[in-house]
């Protein structure tokens, strides 16, 4: 079965950045996606973070092109924040930072515990397997 992983906004950025400056772990991830060895799930909330960053640098057209490529890509799923994620959130007794909780519940929605990010909260609070390049 193909491995599945959720990725955060930083990974989205590195997917379209100067290859030589991309951390080795993310170079390998990209190659695995291209070769069909992993499916990555992009939460729409992560895309919104990228939009926020690129708007500051007047690079919105680049984001539009990136989104078009993700939509056409095999082994890439863009996940809409939806009621299924809310229902998974209802099972959590404690309140968490909403951003992190939505992304963590996206992992649950796709039955994976792997997340590519540098945020240790995913590991410490949500008990996910963090693949951090730092």
């Amino acid at each position, binding site marked *: 079965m193909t491995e599945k992983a959720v990725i955060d906004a930083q990974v989205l950025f590195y997917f379209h950045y100067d290859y030589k400056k991309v951390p080795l772990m993310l170079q390998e991830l990209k190659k695995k996606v291209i070769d069909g060895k992993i499916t990555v799930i992009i939460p729409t909330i992560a895309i919104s973070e990228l939009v926020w960053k690129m708007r500051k640098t007047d*690079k919105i057209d680049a984001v539009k092109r990136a989104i078009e490529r993700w939509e056409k890509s095999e082994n890439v799923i863009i996940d809409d924040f939806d009621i299924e994620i809310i229902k998974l959130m209802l099972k959590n007794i404690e309140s968490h930072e909403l951003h992190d909780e939505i992304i963590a519940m996206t992992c649950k929605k796709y039955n994976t515990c792997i997340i590519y990010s540098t945020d240790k909260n995913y590991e410490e609070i949500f008990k996910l397997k963090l693949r951090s390049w730092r």
Partner: protein
Amino acid sequence: MTEKLTQKVSSNGRIVIPKEWRDKLAINDTNLVEMELNEDKVILIRKKIHPLEIEDNLFEGVSPFTDEELEEVKRSLFPIKD
């Protein structure tokens, strides 16, 4: 430059892409090819490119997210009153 060759087609329609051409296009057994039939005469075979393979550095000139930006964008999504 156009290179041409003639090949025998097997009984079930298989043909072989010559190794030299596969090497030139970096085609291996993990890749897919797209086939196109033009005007009921010409078959065009093209290496299928995954959109993530396009190395045009879309975000050139922008620095990766800093820790401060990651915090700021989270607060922007779900503002917290201090």
